[in-house]
């Protein structure tokens, strides 16, 4: 009798252990706002959608395009791209995937009710035609090289859910049917998201049977949850905790460079800039020597070492070298306070001037601390600095259109830019190109920098389908912009994920900063 009990207990123990080994618990910094993959085109949502859904083309850890639901793609003429779809793929509900689902998705995605940021970004100006069950054509009016990148961002859903499907139906799980590695099980907003391995997946099966996601926004709480073993994996490891976590033998850290550059944007359109004082109404930022002085006065190595605790990389351009369209000739500006002072004096400001730096305090890694460090460094070359940081809810509205006539409000701001496309046209188009609302250029050009030469190169690149030629054009445009200091790059953000060793997990860091479980593998 006794033996039976013991056996039963052992069996129960064993069952318990194996079950827990199969369930990975995740502490996530930001929770997706919906299970509808087309409701909100923003980082956390897209990262989570990638587990349950797939796009025609996938982006690997370094944002290189790899076949997804499409096995191949190519331009068949200047304005048409052809996508060959994968055969034998099944949705989670068992139905077959084919061209109808693609066409259905592309019709629905830009038109979701109440969407605060739609997928129109990737789909507008394009028309799609089903050629046969496994061939789709994407047609634009003008040559459009970014077609594969754009379509890699749109999650394919099953046409069976019907045209009038609502976001609520996705959230309840009824319509949350994709082709991805994991099936959606349940979402309790603010509490947990449960997903389960899709055993019918067409490619490599998911490494884990179940993934339980807990949103833990507070940084110390998230780290504490990992240390206590309540979760096996967290993202957005705060730089402050990295040093300590390195000493913990049961924690494995994974850091990787991102596509995000942290940079300074300067008022380049007002003579009398609101947050510059002591210059008799002149804007010194128009003078390249002053911009150069500012760039030289910044000790990027010190920011990386002290503020970012070593987890960042000094930046010399818009995207880390190695990304498509970056320049090989641009290096991070070396620290040279004496040279900076000399340049300031040459420009006619030997005693500096008054300048306020504005920045968010809850958007980028250590943003407010970086702004204060910049304040310190510029004070040392004689510029009388003030530092003002605020929550992103206030900052971005003001920085973009808080001034008179909806102009940018500030003179000198600290911001960041992540290239969603994984190549240089994204920052060039939005940050460097002159503001041109009608054609969608310069939407985040908060300094209103304008350089016709750069504009022309950017526009030309965006109409060049040939990869090699386009890459050269983008690199050239980058060089012009950086040599003219359209923006002052500070550093490339490095993101860190942490796993528990006993769980046997490893995360492959992603340049797009996403936390997606495809990149979480068994060690």
């Amino acid at each position, binding site marked *: 009798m006794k033996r039976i009990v013991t056996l039963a207990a052992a069996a129960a123990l064993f069952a318990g252990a194996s079950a827990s080994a199969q369930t990975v618990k995740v*502490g996530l910094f930001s929770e997706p*706002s*919906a299970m*509808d993959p087309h*409701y*909100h*085109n*923003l980082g956390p949502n897209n990262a989570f959608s990638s587990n349950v859904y797939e796009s025609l083309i996938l982006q690997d850890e370094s944002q290189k395009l790899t076949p997804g639901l499409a096995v191949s793609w190519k331009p068949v003429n200047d304005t048409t791209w052809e996508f060959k779809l994968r055969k034998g793929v099944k949705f989670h509900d068992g139905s077959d995937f084919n061209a109808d689902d693609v066409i259905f998705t592309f019709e629905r995605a830009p038109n979701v*009710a*109440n*969407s*605060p*940021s*739609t997928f*129109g*970004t990737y789909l*507008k100006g394009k028309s799609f035609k089903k050629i046969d069950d496994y061939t789709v054509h994407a047609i634009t009016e003008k040559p459009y090289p970014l077609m594969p990148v754009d379509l890699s961002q749109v999650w394919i859903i099953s046409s069976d859910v019907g045209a009038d499907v609502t*976001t*609520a139906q996705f*959230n309840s799980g009824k319509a949350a049917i994709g082709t991805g590695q994991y099936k959606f099980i349940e979402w*309790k*907003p*603010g*509490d947990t998201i449960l997903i389960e391995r899709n055993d019918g997946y067409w490619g490599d099966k998911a490494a884990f049977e179940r993934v339980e996601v*807990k*949103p*833990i*926004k*507070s940084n*110390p*709480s*998230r780290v*504490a*949850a990992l*240390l*206590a*073993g*309540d979760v096996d994996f967290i993202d957005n490891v705060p730089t402050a905790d990295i040093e300590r976590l390195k000493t913990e033998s049961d924690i494995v850290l994974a850091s990787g460079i991102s596509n995000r550059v942290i940079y300074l944007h300067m008022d380049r359109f007002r003579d009398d800039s609101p947050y510059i004082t002591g210059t008799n109404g002149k804007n010194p930022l128009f003078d390249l020597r002053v911009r150069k002085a500012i760039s030289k006065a910044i000790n990027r190595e010190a920011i990386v070492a002290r503020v970012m605790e070593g987890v960042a990389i000094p930046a010399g351009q818009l995207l880390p070298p190695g990304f498509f369209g970056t320049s090989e000739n641009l290096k991070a500006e070396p620290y040279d306070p004496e040279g900076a002072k000399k340049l300031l004096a040459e420009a006619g400001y030997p005693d500096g001037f008054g300048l306020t730096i504005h920045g968010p305090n*809850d958007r980028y890694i250590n943003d407010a601390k970086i702004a204060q460090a910049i304040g310190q460094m510029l004070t040392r070359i004689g510029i009388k600095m003030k530092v003002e940081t605020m*929550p*992103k*809810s*206030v900052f*971005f*509205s*003001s920085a*973009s*259109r808080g001034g008179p006539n909806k102009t940018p409000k500030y003179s000198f701001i600290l911001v960041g*830019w*992540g290239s*969603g*496309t994984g190549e240089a046209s*994204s920052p060039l188009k*939005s940050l460097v190109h002159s503001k041109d*609302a*009608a054609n*969608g250029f310069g*939407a*985040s050009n908060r300094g209103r920098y304008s350089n016709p030469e750069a504009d022309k190169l950017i526009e030309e690149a965006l109409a060049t389908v040939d990869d090699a030629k386009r890459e050269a054009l983008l690199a050239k445009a980058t060089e012009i912009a950086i040599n003219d200091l359209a923006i002052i790059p500070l550093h490339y953000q490095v993101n860190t994920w942490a796993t528990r060793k006993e769980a046997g997990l490893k995360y492959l860091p992603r340049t797009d900063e996403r936390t997606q479980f495809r990149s979480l593998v068994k060690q």
Partner: protein
Amino acid sequence: MWAYLTRRLAQAIAVVFVMAVIVFFGVNVIGNPVDILINPEFTEAEYQQAIRALGLHLPLHEQFFVFLSNALEGDLGISFVWGEPALKLIAQRLPATLELAGAAMFLSIVLGVPLGMYAGTKPHSWVSKSIVSGSILGFSLPTFWVGIMMIMVFAVMLGILPSTGRGDTVEVFGIEWSFLTWNGLTHLAMPAVNLALTNIALVIRLSRAGTREVMLQDYIKFARAKGLSQRRITLVHVLKNTLIPVVTVLGLELGSLIAFSVVTETVFAWPGMGKLIIESIQVLDRPIVVAYLMLTVLLFVTINFLVDIVYSLLDPRVRVSGAGK
């Protein structure tokens, strides 16, 4: 009587309306939610589309009119972030917050009353003085600071309690409760103690003060003279009379507890309303902020109104003169 109630009702409605105006226009002054919610790679056209999608293209007074007419039908708007009705989102998280507040309330009474009564019956003993000083510490300690300290000690260093989140739940009457499972209880322990801390201090002080006052009353001296044991006096007579103010104040404190759960929920990642409201303020999810505030206003105004009715039933002067308190 009826005239009085009608007037009170009219006043209550006026208060709700005025608050609606203040809250709605106030919340709509700061920033622009589109700037936060939109993908940074936006173009101007997409920006305009998002503004229309959220209904922000209308002039503010028209937005208010839309809000008001929907509100009268019980619809407080659709969340900008979550894309679902704000009321539904708040209701989803209500049980978690109520559970937390209820647990904290329970702890305050169970710990606070005995300690307070002890301090009240023996005001000059060394232990009593420590209890009283400790209670001052209790409401002086910043909740958020204590919370993270608790996580550090009990979850990280000792590893005996889970650090954050809500545990397994059981469905009772269609609502998920976590205090009915062991796992849920362990998750509940730290946040509940953290939230209760100030209230324990409050109850200690209330019951101590009450006990001291009661001990001076004639009927206690009488009871003593009658030869009743100290134990019986304390447990029956003093406890009964001390509990009345404690319970009254705690009833009023429930609202305060729910409001203060904002802090505890933030530290312990407790999926309740408080966490939702703070996050909504941070991303300018105006419909949720407005709905939350309006619900609270409605709740408190209703409580006030009911209290007035009870008063008027109990106090004949009010019934006659209708002049209020």
